[in-house]
């Protein structure tokens, strides 16, 4: 912002290779990082587990959304199976830690890798089919995985298809309250965020973008489509698996009903609203999709009661549906205002202020 107009010139290879070239961006990232790390401190002082749980849920969703965006936003392969892939990770983690007594980090990583295999398997059709057809193929993945978890007793653990896990512990430190669990999720969220930022500017990331923009052209310039499409599925599923594993440890139960089709669609909504083909987008999308219904719920009910003075009992059904209406309307408005999503909106804000107050 401040020092961009005259150019930022790097004098070392390290500087040129760094993730954020602008000094201000670097500082901003550090500030955000510190804020994220310190977030639980005031909340813990206020004993506000409520806000902490919201923040954790958003961070969790953001991991899954970042993963999905690598596949959909960067590589252009539509997937409606994200929920099921998360379920694979969740159950892998739960089985490993509840039946084999593995520590949580083994569960989460194994969840990531097993999901990676499963995701790659279901990515194979992408070599032949594209667009909506692929979407239907991944829908099949969602249904097949749900069915398998539901009916294979070894995986689901019986009629209830749910497996309890204990609180994750790391060297005697037990993640036994909301504030501690937040850090557990935060670490993985930061890993996911920065690793995907790095991934996208690497050879692999550029290949993904080439495949997205025109796969035939990409093949002609020497991108191995077979490899990169499957790789996109693998990486994206890995993120999903990690997110699913974390979700399991967060709730302390693996239950496939947390990962149904509607969840997959929610993740698609996150990346579309947040902005396809960006890293910040899915994060903003996750915030939007997870926070707005809660804000609406608190706000609409509060306004009805405090401003209009109607008791909740009389208008509960109306309020509940009105929230859905407003939620839908807001999504439409946001998408009309900026089809490229919240990430682009943020870019526009930054651009506006770049020369402020002398913008032209």
């Amino acid at each position: 912002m401040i020092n961009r107009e005259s150019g930022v010139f790097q004098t070392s290879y390290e500087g040129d290779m760094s993730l954020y070239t602008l000094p201000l961006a670097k500082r901003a990232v550090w500030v955000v990082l510190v804020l994220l790390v310190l977030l639980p401190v005031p909340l813990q002082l206020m004993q506000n587990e409520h806000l902490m749980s919201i923040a954790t849920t958003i961070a969790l969703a953001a991991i899954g959304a970042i993963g999905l965006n690598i596949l959909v936003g960067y590589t252009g392969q539509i997937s409606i199976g994200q929920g099921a892939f998360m379920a694979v990770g969740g159950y892998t983690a739960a089985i490993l830690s509840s039946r084999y007594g593995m520590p949580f980090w083994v569960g989460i990583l194994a969840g990531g890798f097993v999901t990676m295999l499963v995701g790659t398997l279901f990515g194979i059709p992408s070599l032949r089919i594209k667009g909506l057809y692929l979407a239907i193929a991944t829908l099949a993945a969602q249904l097949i995985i749900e069915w398998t978890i539901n009916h294979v007793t070894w995986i689901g653990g019986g009629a209830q298809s749910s497996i309890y896990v204990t609180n994750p512990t790391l060297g005697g430190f037990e993640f036994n309250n909301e504030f501690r669990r937040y850090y557990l999720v935060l670490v993985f969220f930061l890993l996911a965020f920065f690793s995907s930022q790095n991934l996208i500017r690497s050879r692999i990331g550029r290949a993904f973008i080439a495949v997205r923009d025109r796969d035939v052209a990409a093949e002609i310039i020497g991108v191995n489509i077979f490899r990169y499409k499957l790789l996109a599925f693998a990486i994206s599923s890995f993120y999903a698996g990690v997110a699913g594993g974390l979700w399991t440890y967060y709730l302390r139960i693996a239950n496939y009903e947390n990962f149904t089709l509607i969840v997959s669609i929610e993740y698609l909504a996150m990346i579309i609203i947040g902005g396809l083909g960006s890293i910040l987008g899915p994060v903003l999308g996750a915030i939007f999709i997870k926070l707005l219904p809660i804000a609406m719920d608190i706000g609409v009910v509060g306004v009805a009661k405090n401003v209009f003075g109607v008791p909740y009992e009389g208008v509960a059904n109306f309020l509940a549906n009105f929230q859905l209406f407003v939620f839908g309307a807001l999504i439409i408005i946001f998408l009309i205002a900026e089809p490229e999503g919240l990430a682009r909106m943020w870019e526009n804000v930054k651009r506006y202020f770049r020369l402020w107050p002398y913008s032209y």
Partner: protein
Amino acid sequence: MQYRRWLGWGMVALLVGLSGAPTPALAEEIMLGGQCDRTGPTKNVGTVICPGLLDYIRLVNHTGGVEGHTIRYDEVEHAYKVDRAVEAYERLKRQGVVAFLDYGTPIVYALTPRHMEDKLLGITPGFGRADSTDGEAFPYIFPAAATYWSQMGAAMQFVKDQGVKKGDKLGYIFYDNPAGREPLDIFQMICDQEGYECRTFAVPPPGVEMASQILDITRRFKPKFVISHLFGKAPAISIKEFKKNGFPLDKVVSLVWGGGEPDFISAGWENSQGYLAMHFAGVGRDFPVIQAIIKMYQDEGQEVPEIVGSVFYNRGVLSGALLVEGVRQAIQHFGLPITGEKVKMGMEKVKDFSLGGFLPPLTFAPSDHEGGGWVRIYQTKGEGMVPYTDWFQGYRDLVLAEVKKAVEKGKSN
């Protein structure tokens, strides 16, 4: 850019939403809370259950509260989504809620560890976890009404009383999700024990297509009785299919989520005559508590809603009544201030609580958080339901033994 303005309004709406922070409880109020699903997949049930609960709380406050204390019940919509239910739980907890209604099977599963950690009680009538009957293993979860296992035990007892003998055929049609499969083991076990010839028929979600299963039951298997365990739109469709295939509906007995007025309305009352369904709360308006609610509406000069006295409404009343009774016992035995632990111990002191025949004689104990597993079977007649049996339990010993086994398995898992 006119959209900018819209966007601005959107932001304003978001900020208003965020600033409308939850209000904490007043000192003399007792906070209860729960989630509801008024917009999600079970909205046809939620929009009837939750008003029942809210009306009962209103009735309690209308008639002087509990031991002189006002009850405040806060409801949070979760649309049957687990993450929103977690948020709802945390929000209500922050407001000082001491006892919850947990709405929905996956939600009960997800919130169970939180209830245990926070020592805050949750009742889950009809929603889940047969093994949480064992209050020693699940101290803060109260199924508070017959679980799916007890319902299955009762259904098997009922068909036995109706003359199903060794070697007779018995069918079980169920919704193929965890809640639908939960009673499966109990069914098989009793079948083996009694020597029935049993077959199960799974209906895959969303349960709108079951012509082949019902054809299979009615034309090929030809059972003497069918036990049905379906949710959502599925019960209505099953009724229509049974009717179409000429299967006598008084040979079908449904567990608790398959016999509400919405099901009969969508199947058509004329098609549902004779259908048997199980309930864990009374049906209709001929109960003192329902009459009191009607009177409350009349005193306030309001029209009595049509749903008052319907199946799901009465279940809401049951949830409210149990929460309030737990609080009442807690105040009587352990005094103020009310905490989750006290409500839990209060709940365990509830004895022969029947609200004038509206409920079975519910008796809780540290080892029994289910209240006895009572049900009653109603038959559809005209545009309503009439009692077909009295309150009864079935295969209680077998069910309790299974609960013990499940708890043991859960511990070793």
